């Protein structure tokens, strides 16, 4: 499997480490009144789609950047690769 890194181009998947659902980026507000419930869902509840899935990959054997990879869990086809920091910043984080 080849992952088309946004900065470095196509790279072998052996250089990457898989984390899981990209919703890990959306850490709930710990000060919100329903924080306990939100963190329960954040920590434990995952969809398990047969189809396109946004997930976090770490370029451990490369530039050590986190990527958000959109991968079809049925065919392994990768349709989109983004820098996780760009995704987070688009949501107003770490700007």
């Amino acid at each position, binding site marked *: 499997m080849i992952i088309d890194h946004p*900065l*470095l*181009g196509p*790279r*072998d998947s*052996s*250089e990457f480490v898989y984390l899981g659902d990209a919703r890990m980026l959306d850490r709930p507000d710990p000060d919100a009144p329903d924080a306990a419930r939100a963190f329960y869902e954040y920590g434990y509840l995952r969809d398990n789609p047969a189809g396109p899935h946004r997930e976090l990959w770490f370029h*451990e*054997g*490369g*530039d*050590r*950047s986190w990527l958000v990879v959109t991968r079809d869990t049925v065919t392994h086809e990768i349709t989109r690769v983004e*820098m996780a*920091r760009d995704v987070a910043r688009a949501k107003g984080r*770490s700007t």
Partner: protein
Amino acid sequence: MHSLTPITALGGAQPRIDTIAEMTLTENPGLALASIAARRGHEEACKDHLRALIGDVPGPGRSQLHDPEAAFWTGPDNWMAGAPFDTHEDLAAQLKARFGETASITEQTDAWVCFDLRGDGIEAVMERLCAIDIRTMVTGDAQRTVIHHLGFFVLRRDPADWLRILGPRASAGSLHHAIVTAMKAVA
């Protein structure tokens, strides 16, 4: 007073040199290194300092070959700077004085082992070691990938039959073994 004898990354009093067929692998203890990480909000000021130091800011997968200091890209807003150890043993302190609050500078000299691989056949050696497409790399290209589960940098130098390999110093023996084994396989 202590009387300490400096040794190289491979533990010798002198740098190790292996010549196999037309290829030479040389342990290079003469390199001072420091990493540069731009601080948030100071990215452009940090790049201005880097440009003033070495003439350009290397982008993804590239190095800026320059004397005495040089640098290559290691990640977004991150670079590794190198210079001759004899004149720049305090490279990190020199860079910190220049970059100030725009970047976090970390001493890296003793974290890495440096090998210079030269000669005909070095592309075939790298093809046996890692997943990098070494034949598409030109002078000035710098990539990080994996040899035998060890993350390492490979820099294509000038002339192009010269590769510089930076690997984790604590695993210098393992990396050396891997490279020499591949050199023998190619020879």
